């Protein structure tokens, strides 16, 4: 069977000692940044991207992916123990997880989160392995018109699921695409918007954009209000859930795995949505809904499983279409490009070892995470005592050196400062940075396919709506925006994200 052959090839690659080591480094770093508030996986991956240049492609991608899903685990640990979600999707976990901790049941809550995540991660890895090849085959038939519409869909759908003003998100996308046009024009070689600066001919580096908008801007946000963080954590005892706990976990974990796997494929932070969706589903189907909010183990196991499943399946659009579902995936695209690989439907056939190795490594990583997280919980929690005023200079310095090392170009470093200020001001104005980064990464693809499609159609713009696949993709994109704007759905969306903020 193809699937088994592929998975065997993947496991063979992922289990090479060197790759296991990078996977371990990735998940340890990921857990660390998941635990630490004020630095997320996006900024971390952006900072580490330049370093991965010297690694083998497989090792680099395995490590970066490990940071991403490791952060999901780390975020839930602090959510449960000290009611401080390190990652946005862990906000739901905090509701019941922290209640359990207050009742002296932190151990079972952590175990439920870890075991649920492990199960969901394992299943989602198989989903990924099953779904990727056929999707890639479909995508191989795509012409420029279809690709253009697909990118439009990817960009617009990310608005529907993002929080905040739709209008601002749209503007952020357009600004991102525009910033992506800086540099030499692909067709004519004309340098655009470089103002005579030779160093900008290659374009603005997306590492600078990501580090500035997600790293520097976030640091400035945190420095607005410097409070002392006192962390008091009681020792976690009796880790293992009771038989009753386990029995109550099974159904939520199964439901959440399905839900998360499906939602993870959607553009725009599917894993946050998955966690919230799972929580409300569990509350609705539970025989004891009154326990939710007061330490129901279903409220921990469900969302945690859902968010981990979604974290894995969000690799599907990346590996099959070359389309990132959210900023972290956009950075993964960058990692591919640094390694000289253009992400897209060909990757899976041309670099099977890379793709299947990456997929299998996620399973390896999940095993490592369970082994690391439960016994070492005390170590992770102690990391919270690292004062922020020592942490943020380290982030800035690493970011500056790392970005500079990418081509030894000082303009990439100046760009960090520029995007730091821009990002900070825009975030203050209620604009989310994610759409801008997606627009920036996908912009060149959008322009290239638009121009190519119009050349093929001899300048006839109706080509995008007369070709059926392209028309369908555009219709879905329009529907996604309509959904985001429609008042009824808008209100519900705000309710969902309101919980997240509180």
């Amino acid at each position: 069977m193809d699937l088994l052959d592929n998975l065997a090839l993947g496991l063979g690659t992922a289990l090479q000692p060197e790759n296991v080591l990078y996977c371990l480094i990735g998940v340890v770093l990921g857990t660390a940044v998941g635990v630490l508030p004020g630095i997320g996986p996006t900024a971390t991956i952006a900072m580490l991207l330049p370093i991965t240049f010297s690694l083998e492609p497989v090792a680099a991608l395995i490590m970066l992916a490990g940071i991403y899903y490791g952060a999901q685990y780390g975020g839930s640990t602090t959510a449960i123990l000290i009611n401080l979600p390190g990652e946005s999707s862990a906000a739901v976990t905090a509701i019941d997880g922290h209640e359990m901790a207050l009742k002296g049941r932190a151990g079972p809550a952590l175990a439920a989160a870890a075991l649920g995540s492990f199960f969901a991660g394992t299943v989602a890895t198989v989903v990924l392995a099953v779904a990727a090849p056929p999707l890639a085959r479909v995508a191989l038939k795509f012409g420029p018109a279809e690709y253009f519409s697909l990118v439009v869909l990817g960009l617009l759908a990310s608005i529907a699921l993002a929080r905040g003003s739709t209008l601002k998100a749209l503007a952020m996308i357009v600004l991102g695409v525009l910033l992506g046009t800086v540099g030499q024009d692909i067709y004519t070689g004309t340098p655009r918007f470089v103002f005579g600066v030779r160093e900008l001919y290659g374009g603005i580096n997306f590492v600078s954009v990501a580090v500035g908008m997600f790293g520097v801007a976030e640091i400035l946000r945190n420095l607005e209000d410097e409070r002392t963080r006192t962390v008091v954590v009681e020792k976690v005892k009796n880790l293992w859930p009771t038989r009753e706990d386990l029995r109550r976990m099974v159904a939520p974990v199964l439901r959440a795995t399905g839900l998360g796997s499906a939602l993870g494929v959607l553009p725009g932070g599917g894993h946050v949505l998955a966690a919230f969706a799972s929580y409300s589903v569990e509350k609705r189907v539970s025989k004891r809904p009154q326990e939710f909010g007061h330490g129901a183990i279903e409220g921990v196991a469900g969302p945690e499983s859902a968010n981990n499943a979604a974290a894995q399946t969000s690799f599907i659009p990346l590996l099959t279409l070359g389309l990132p579902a959210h900023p972290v995936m956009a950075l993964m695209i960058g990692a591919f490009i640094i390694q000289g690989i253009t992400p897209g439907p060909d990757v899976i056939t041309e670099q099977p070892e890379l793709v299947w190795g990456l997929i299998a490594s996620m399973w390896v990583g999940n095993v490592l995470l369970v082994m690391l997280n439960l016994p070492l919980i005390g170590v992770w929690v102690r990391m919270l005592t690292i004062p922020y005023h020592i942490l943020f200079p380290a982030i800035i310095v690493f970011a500056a050196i790392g970005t500079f090392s990418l081509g030894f170009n000082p303009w990439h470093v100046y760009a960090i400062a520029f995007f730091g200020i821009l990002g900070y001001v825009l975030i203050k104005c209620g604009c989310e940075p994610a759409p801008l980064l997606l627009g920036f990464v996908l912009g060149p693809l959008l322009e290239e396919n638009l121009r190519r499609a119009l050349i093929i159609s001899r300048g006839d713009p109706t080509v995008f709506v007369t070709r059926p696949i392209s028309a369908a993709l555009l219709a879905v994109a329009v529907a996604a925006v309509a959904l985001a704007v429609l008042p009824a759905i808008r209100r519900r969306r705000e309710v969902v994200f309101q919980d997240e903020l509180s």
Partner: protein
Amino acid sequence: MNGNRAVTDILAGLIFVAFGLAFATASLRYELGTPLRMGPGYFPLALGGILVLLGLLIVGKGLFSGAGAEGRLGSIPWRALFLIVLAVLFFGLTVRGLGLVPATAVTALLTALASYRTSLLAAVAIATGLTVLCVLIFVVALQLQLPLFGPWLPFSL
């Protein structure tokens, strides 16, 4: 400022308008081409126009629809903003000339001072520690080809 206006919307909108105008006017300097064969200026000009339009809509929304607490900007950490930007620019300007060690040390020092909680002495300690750490990580472990001390200094390594 008037409580009925959302300062955040107005500012965000103006930023978008400014970027849109800048890109649109700059793209007029490049060949526009036709829809069949777009020149380098076509795509940015069109998008610049769209961005101006979106920006104006956001400004309009800020002017005419009431806003509560989320319409205000809140406090801005001016000292941190200034010091961090200065630190990053300093690094870019000097890393080739001064070399990794001095550039990193000064950048770390400036950044550390961005926090009100860090005294000068503590900042020096943080900067020293970070510089050692960075040399170990980037030069020793990752073998980055960068001089520790650059040509601007009387001695170089």
